[in-house]
């Protein structure tokens, strides 16, 4: 039985370092995950970590420089900057995550049929992508935010998702185009599978590694876009502690109280930087 001789499982991918050793071999991923953990930790444990409420205003002069009572100082309304930063992490992460989900959903909805059907469908959908991409994203976001009747967390992340989906759609289309030619996709068609089943069962699962990469990049972009929107006064309304709004606020005080601008900036940098490091590492690993 010659076939029995070769029946053992292929061992080529069995010997992979696990756990700490695996992470140590990928410093970029490790750093990115560490930075992201810091931000997630800040968001989750904000009520316990924060020395003050993010909304209470201290009496007296404002803004106050860093002191033992206010470790990072207070803003122009006398609110503790550290507390606002910690609670702001919640909003930034929620927006980064949810807006990315919106972007992924729209991107898949557009990219999968464009790549799979090709021809007219592809042409029409990709021209739509071109039109959206032709606008600078912040301009489009401001325009969309201005059209919406009211502003809350939901509408803000919808706006950001509606701006961010084009990259996802392009990447998904490209990958689908390549996957469509795979023999196992043809095999599914030969079995009688319709386009819906082929796309969901045989193409979408293979997009997962790519989508993870695109998602980490997109989450970073979403947080920056939110900061930009808040900075322009089109983000979440006051007194929400959002990093972008804190930066806008700091602008008026940049000579008298430079710490107001530094710390929200550092927070954005850590979050976006961490996400990008993860994205770059994942991208590099994908063959």
């Amino acid at each position: 039985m010659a076939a029995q001789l070769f029946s053992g499982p292929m061992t080529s991918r069995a010997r992979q370092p696990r756990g700490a050793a695996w992470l140590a071999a990928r410093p970029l991923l490790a750093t990115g995950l560490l930075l992201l953990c810091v931000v997630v930790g800040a968001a989750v444990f904000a009520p316990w970590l924060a020395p003050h409420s993010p909304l209470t205003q201290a009496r007296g002069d404002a803004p106050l420089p860093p002191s033992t009572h206010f470790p990072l100082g207070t803003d122009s309304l006398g609110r503790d900057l550290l507390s606002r930063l910690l609670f702001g992490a919640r909003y930034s992460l929620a927006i980064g995550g949810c807006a990315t989900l919106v972007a992924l959903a729209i991107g898949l909805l557009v990219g999968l049929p464009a790549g799979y059907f090709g021809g007219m469908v592809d042409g029409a959908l990709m021209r739509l992508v071109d039109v959206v991409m032709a606008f600078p994203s912040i301009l489009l976001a401001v325009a969309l935010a201005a059209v919406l009747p009211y502003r809350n967390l939901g509408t803000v992340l919808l706006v950001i998702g509606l701006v961010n989906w084009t990259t996802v759609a392009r990447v998904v289309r490209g990958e689908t185009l390549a996957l469509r030619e795979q023999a196992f996709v043809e095999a599914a068609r030969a079995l009688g599978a319709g386009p819906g089943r082929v796309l969901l069962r045989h193409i979408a699962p293979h997009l997962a590694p790519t989508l993870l990469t695109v998602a980490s990049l997109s989450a970073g972009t979403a947080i920056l876009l939110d900061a930009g929107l808040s900075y322009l006064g089109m983000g979440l309304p006051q007194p929400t502690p959002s990093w972008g709004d804190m930066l806008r606020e700091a602008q008026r005080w940049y000579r008298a109280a430079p710490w107001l601008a530094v710390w929200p900036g550092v927070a954005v940098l850590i979050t976006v930087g961490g996400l990008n490091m993860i994205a770059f590492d994942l991208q590099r690993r994908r063959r």
Partner: protein
Amino acid sequence: MSRAPGGSSSLLQVDRLSKRYPGRGNAILAVDDVSFALSAGETFGLVGESGCGKSTLARCVLNLIRPTAGRVLFDGRNLFDLPGGEMRALRREMQIIFQDPYSSLDPRMTVRATLLEPLEIHRVGSHATREARVQEVLAQVGLPESALRKYPHEFSGGQRQRLGIARALALAPRLIVADEPVSALDLSIRAQILNLMQDLQEAYGLTYLLIAHDLTIVRHFCHRVAVMFQGQIVESAPTDELFACPLHPYTQALLRAIPPPDPDQPRKRSGPAGRGETDGPGEWPCRFAPRCPLAEEICRREAPALRELRPEHWVRCHLAEAPLIVLQ
């Protein structure tokens, strides 16, 4: 027996099928006016060199590629006239075994999911009967039940091809198109897979359209053989007839190229099939003329038609003549 072009009581009838791939100035006629018919229970071999259009033909027969012209009648119904839903339903009757057992199985699906898929698509039976059917076909292709939870990469090439056969078999089709089913496998595995296919043919009464580039496989496996050259069938005959009495110079060259079973036996060396590569079809009325050692004036002037020189034996050559005596 049905006759090569035409035939009425056949399971599959390919009628004047053509597939042209458009290109800037150099469109490729991958399949050129091909007709043949398969009766139920028969194995029909289609041989030819790489790029002669046999895989394109196989995909047109299954309506995976739309041909430029022609009809494919399955049970008398033209596949290209059927609405999408009916076509998909008809796929239950006609399946394909792929050349490459590595890329034709979805690497992210377990064997169970892979074998369940055809049954799910066609909504065959209940959940329990589907599971039973999966185990049945798995046993029929000679794989243990423990394979169900594994992924394709955990199997060898021969085992993967068994999985591909099991998937094609799950719906108990009537026709299986086998596109070079063993050419990606080790020599030692080939006979096993071919024997398996033969056993399954008896068990299920399958009809095979076997695509191959290897005449030795065809010889032991097929009832009838057609030889393809640059998109056209140049010769077709019952297998024994073709091997005993090849009439087209291309077939003769192919047969000369088969190495003798005994390596010590002195072998008449011959050149490649004809005089080497040419620029592709379209320039000569007879496609084979540029490579043909016998080419004459008429071959450069007129396209040869398929002629039935002996019973069931069709040849596309001006110069071929029926021999008076054939030594079997």
